[in-house]
Structure formats: structure tokens, C-alpha cells
């Protein structure tokens, strides 16, 4: 029998205890506020320390290929068109047309209206198709509309749904409301994987990030994701550290593994490698796979390709040698 802080397991297993939590606002609040706090200075210091690891030669080559496989190649613009997303999907399949040994990315991430066009290109390729739904990015729409958004995306061929949590409800302490929305969205997803976007830039404190992470996991999220990329502060190393600690502790408590996706603002190979080091030293090898860790990014991919070419040829090729899609 395991014990979770703030909630001592008194029945047969911790697992059943945690599943009861969502039934009452009080139980959820007691649990979330009983989680150990996060010391801001300490968390930022640890993240900075991990950022000083020196990843060279063979380790760098492995890290770059892994990072490419973890990219959720994303376009979320009002100006997205079928032509634009088809091109992006083509790039996802063969990121470096000049080098067949280059792996494909993890997924393509688009708005629901663009899903059918991407689905045509990706079918049978092994590249996942993710779609943001639930009135992305603000989440400020009636629940029925959010759920319809999800169902439409899944029907059109998305096998991963990136939802946003109701930050307004979270920040005003209505945890049960956030929980119920996630549960409903998970149900609407059917077989599709659910990534829960916490929008950590709006949650502001690491204590909130930890609580929102647990809330999303308790409600059934398959992945927790930092950001929409639509607010000024997106993914950071310390925020990702706190989320990684949460998925680690959640698995220890329940046996269920949840993935993590930092998104927004990760632009360079150097940054991506810092994240991989953090995954490696915080949660370990179990999470070092595209099934459990993703990068939500667009421009990152070309930098990864550029560094990959540099490692194999010894020279940097100019930006015109990499496709702009």
C-alpha cells in the first residue's frame, strides 16, 4: 500500500483512492493543496544545472535523431490552408529529402478544419495526426461546443487531441469543473490520445503547475502539455521539470505512465538537448521515446536538421538547403 502526501491510503490500494478524488470538490482541493510545494529558486537552479550538461559527438547524434522523432510539427495560424498543411505533412514524413536515413517526426499538429487534408498525406505512415480542439487557444466556449470540436477532429482522422484546460476555472479554484471537462473531453476522444494543455504561462506559479498536472492526470489525460504557444510565456525548462516530477510521482502512485509535451519557444537543437537531458535525469529512459515525450514546435525541426547535417558532413549548410514548410 502506498501513501500519497495529503491523502493517506486507507483502503486496499492507492489507485482506488485516487479515482475517488474527482467525485468531490473538497477531496480534489485537499489532495491538490496537500502536494509538496515547489521552491521556485530551487527548481530554477536545478533546471539551469541540467542545462550545463555537455552533449557531444555520438550522444549528440543520438539526441538529434530522438528529438526529430519527438517533434509535433505544428502550424496553428488563421492563415493555414489545405496547401500549407499538405506541405507540412509532406515534410513530417521526410524532413530531410536529401537523406533517407533521417527519421520522420512524431506527429503533425493542426486545427480541426485542416485535419482531413493532413490525414490524406499521413495515412499509414506511422506519423501521428494531432489536432488542437476545445476552442483552442482560450478554451472560453461552452462545453458542448468544445466537445463537438473534439468529435469533429477525431472523425476527420486525428488520433491525438490537444485540449486546453479551463484556466479561468482553475485559477478561481473550481477544480472539479476543470476535472469534469477533462473527463468529458477524454470520453469524446474515444481511442484518440488526449494531451492536456495547462497553459503554464497563465498559471504563473510552479505550485499551480504541479497541481494542474496532477489534476489533468487524475482526470485521465494521456499527456500533459505546457502551452498553446499563443501567450507570451510558453515552455520553459523549470516548468517542464515540475511537470516531469509530477508524471514520475503519478506513475509511482498509480502505475499509469503519462507523457509530457513542452510546446512553444523551443527553437534550437541546443534547447531540445537540454530538455532531453532533463527527461533522462528526472524520469529516466522510460520517457525517452516519442510515445512519452514530444516537442510542440515548428522552427525547431530545421535547426535539428541543420545540426544533423553538420554532424555527418562536418560543415554547416546554409538555410536554403533545408525546406521551408
Amino acid at each position, binding site marked *: 500500500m502506498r501513501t500519497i*502526501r495529503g491523502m493517506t491510503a486507507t483502503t486496499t490500494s492507492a489507485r482506488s483512492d485516487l479515482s475517488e478524488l474527482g467525485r468531490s470538490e473538497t477531496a480534489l482541493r485537499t489532495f491538490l493543496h496537500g502536494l*509538496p*510545494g*515547489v*521552491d521556485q*529558486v*530551487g*527548481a530554477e*537552479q*536545478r533546471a539551469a544545472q541540467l542545462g*550545463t*550538461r*555537455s*552533449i*557531444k*559527438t*555520438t*550522444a*549528440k547524434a*543520438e*539526441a538529434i535523431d*530522438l528529438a526529430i522523432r519527438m517533434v509535433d510539427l505544428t502550424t496553428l495560424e488563421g492563415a493555414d490552408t489545405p496547401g500549407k498543411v499538405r506541405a507540412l505533412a509532406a515534410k513530417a514524413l521526410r524532413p530531410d529529402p536529401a537523406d533517407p536515413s533521417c527519421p520522420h517526426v512524431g506527429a503533425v499538429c493542426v486545427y480541426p478544419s485542416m485535419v482531413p487534408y493532413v490525414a490524406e498525406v499521413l495515412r499509414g505512415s506511422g506519423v501521428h495526426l494531432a489536432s488542437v480542439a476545445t476552442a483552442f487557444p482560450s478554451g472560453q466556449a461552452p462545453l458542448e461546443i468544445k466537445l463537438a470540436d473534439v468529435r469533429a477532429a477525431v472523425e476527420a482522422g486525428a488520433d491525438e487531441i490537444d485540449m486546453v484546460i479551463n484556466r479561468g476555472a482553475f485559477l478561481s479554484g473550481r477544480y472539479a469543473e476543470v476535472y469534469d471537462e477533462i473527463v468529458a473531453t477524454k470520453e469524446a476522444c474515444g481511442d484518440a490520445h488526449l494531451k492536456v494543455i495547462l497553459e503554464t504561462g497563465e498559471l504563473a506559479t510552479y505550485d499551480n503547475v504541479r497541481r494542474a498536472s496532477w489534476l489533468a492526470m487524475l482526470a485521465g489525460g494521456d499527456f500533459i502539455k505546457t502551452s498553446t504557444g499563443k501567450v507570451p510565456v510558453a515552455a520553459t525548462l523549470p516548468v517542464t521539470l515540475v511537470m516531469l*516530477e509530477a508524471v514520475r510521482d503519478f506513475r509511482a502512485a498509480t502505475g499509469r505512465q503519462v507523457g509530457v509535451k513542452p510546446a512553444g519557444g523551443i527553437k534550437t537543437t541546443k534547447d531540445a538537448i537540454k530538455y*532531453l*537531458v532533463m527527461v*533522462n*535525469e528526472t524520469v529516466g*529512459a522510460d520517457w*525517452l521515446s516519442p510515445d512519452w515525450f514530444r516537442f510542440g514546435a515548428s522552427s525547431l525541426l530545421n535547426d535539428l536538421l541543420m545540426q544533423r547535417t553538420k554532424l555527418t558532413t562536418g560543415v554547416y549548410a546554409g538555410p536554403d538547403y533545408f525546406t521551408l514548410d
Partner: protein
Amino acid sequence: MFEYAPAPESRSVVDIKPSYGLFVDGAFVDPASGGSFKSVNPASEEVLAEIAEAGADDVDRAVRAARTAYEKVWGPMPGRDRAKYLFRIARLIQERSRELAVLESLDNGKPIKESRDVDLPLVAAHFFYYAGWADKLPHAGFGPDPKPLGVAAQVIPWNFPLLMLAWKIAPALAAGNTVVLKPAETTPLTALLFAEICQQADLPAGVVNIVTGAGDTGRALVEHPGVDKVAFTGSTEVGRAIARSVAGTRKKLTLELGGKAANIVFDDAPIDQAVEGIVNGIFFNQGHVCCAGSRLLVQESVADRVLESLKRRMAQLRVGDPLDKNTDIGAINSAEQLTRIRELSDAGSAEGAERWSPPCELPERGFWFAPTIFTGVTQAHRIAREEIFGPVLSVLTFRTPAEAVEKANNTPYGLSAGIWTDKGSRILWLADRLRAGVVWANTFNKFDPTSPFGGYKESGYGREGGRHGLEGYLNV
């Protein structure tokens, strides 16, 4: 698995000479007796250089040189001019920091990431800080016109060779004293490179003198009748002997000695950060830290959880080549120190404490000790009372804040302590009651030149760092 490829810092940035003389009166000279000893790389047991051994005659020569420089040049020099030299030294240290960091790691065995990111920035910061005081002594709170003492004899340990040199030399020179410094016999090389920096900075001859050697050299230096001030950092045993030898003389004495710090973790602590703090507290610099958090006092209600996290974290520590940029724990400084760590650890097991280390492969050559924790330790165990000065943590538990205070203070030492709790009022309550010179709250092993450092009880007396650090070098 994500294996990190070797990422060694290049040792070609530093030029180690086959042999070094003594630095006396602005020049490197041979010792009168012609004696020498070897400094080895503790990570490989390779001999790095042949070092001159200073005898009583050499010490006498150095003290005389310091006296002359004090009377003729440095003492009469206006503070603003002394400041210029100190600023110049600080800048040269920054410019040559990579070279100094590599040399420090080679000679001491500490990981390059620590010598590069902790030791060297602090060394430069100390010189910058005290350079700023040199022309402002009337505003330091020691009267309108405080005077220097004269010649300072300074004996420093091997755990932070260059940083301890900075802690000693920077305030001494800022206050207007001249110095004769003896580095530890296992780690003299960065002090000798510092001597070259003094030459490069055109520091007047005799203001800084460096005499190398072991215990006899140190004894000759502190007992020399020509010194006005003795500053020592090292073991309590040697500190006691020094206190006896200067008793009854006019020499002013400051001692910074051993410690057995309590790192106190309450049940409301931010656990993940507390674990980082525990790791940093005891495994930083292989635990060769006088203020190391070598006793973990953890509240019983969270002990299992903290220990589980701690063990998981310890399994991530990378032990090995100090020059690899990804190494977390380097080599034990000497065979002698390794023997002591082994002896005390064996005593811990023999007395019934439970020993645990993560699986870790140690290099064959050199002096190594795996990071180790002992659980089930009581106040009566030797490993809870004696300073191990190695990567060995003793874990004890407590039930109430009052018991935490009692146990934390129940040691002859009193250098530092750590408190981990989310409750601000408890931090203040506890800090008032801990008999330790430095109390860290939700952090550990943080140093800054503006902050005074020193001990209670058998951890010594006097303060180094900050405005307070000037007092030991002024006639007040």
C-alpha cells in the same frame, strides 16, 4: 538509454612546469635546504610537478620580505592605490579563469563544472569585493581610521585551494597587510599560478609570499615571531595546536575549522528541491566541505519519502574523470583522506547503521569513494559526531521542531545548518535557536563575498567575508 559521450575539458590550456620554487619577495626562489615534494593528480596518481619544501630559513626569509614590503610600500600606500592592484588581480583571475579551473581540477580532483562554475567565479568576486573596501575602510564600522596589523601568516586547506587563498589574501591586502601564505601540500599549484598573476599585475615585491610545504612549514610560519596575525582554515585538531602556540603572543588569530552540519527537512518542505539541497549539501566537492550538510535530520513522517527520492537522485550522480564536463563527483583528494573516509564508514557499518550507495563504477587508478548514505544513525554513532569530510551522509530523524533543534545543536561543532520548510515563521524560529555561524533556508552551500562566514564552538572563531571579514585584519 541516453548515454553521454565523454566531454573532456582540454588540459592543454594550462602549462604545468616540471618544478616550482617558493614565491618570496616577488620572485620564485629555491629553498635553502633544497628539499621538495610531489603534487599528484588524485584522479590518476600521476605526478604533476615537483614542489619546493620551505624550511624555517625560507619561512623567515618570506616573513622578512613581507615585513619590508609592509613598512616600505604596502602599509603607507593609499587605499585607492591598493584597490587598483586588487582590481587588476581580480580581472586577471577572470581572464585566466579557464586555466585556473583546469589546474584546480587536476591538482585537487574536483569536477571541472564546480571549479569552472563555483570556485573561480567566487575567487574573482572576492577580490573585486575587497578591492572595493580598500579605500573605504573608515566606513567599515571600525573607527575613523582603522590600521592594518602588519604581516599575516595564512595557512589554507586543500578542499578549495584557490578560493581559500582568495578568502585569506583579498581582505588582508585590502586592509593594508602583507601576507605569507602556505597552501596545502596536496594542492599547491593554483597558489603558485596565483603568484604568477601577482607578478603579471606588477604587485610590489613582498606583498604576497607563498611558501609551500607540509605541517612543519605551517608550524614554522605560524610560530614565527615576526608575524602579527595568523589565519587558519583546516582541521579542529590543527586549529587547537595553533591556538596553543599563539597564546600569550600579540598575534591576532582567526580559525575556521571543522563542522558537522545538520540539514533539517520538515514534512512541509518542497521535497524535490530539498533533495537537491541534500545532494548539494553533502556531495558538492566530494563532501570535502567544512560546512557540508553531513547530518540529514528529516522529520519522521516524511523520512521514507525523502529517502526514496534521495536514493533515486543519487543514482543519477556521475562519478569519474574530474575534467569531464558532465562529472558530478570527482576524486578524493589524497590517499590519506580516502583512508579516513573508509575508516569512518566502516565504523558506521560496525556500529549498526545501514549503508547504501548507488551502483557506480569507480576508476581503477586514483582515489575514489562512491556517494554513500547511512540510515538508522543515532546521535551516539561516530558517523553522527565526527567530521568525515567525504561523500558520506548520516541520516537521522526527528519528531518535533524542538527535537530538531536539540539534535542539530548536539555537536561540538557549529559552522552551518540548513532548514527546509515552506513555513517562513518556522525558518525564523529555528534560525534563532541553531548554534551555527551560517544558517541556510531552503538552499545549501551558497556563498557570496558580501556574506560573513565562520563558526560557533569548535568550528572556530572570527568571520571571513563581508564587512566583518575586515575585522580580522585590522588593529581594532
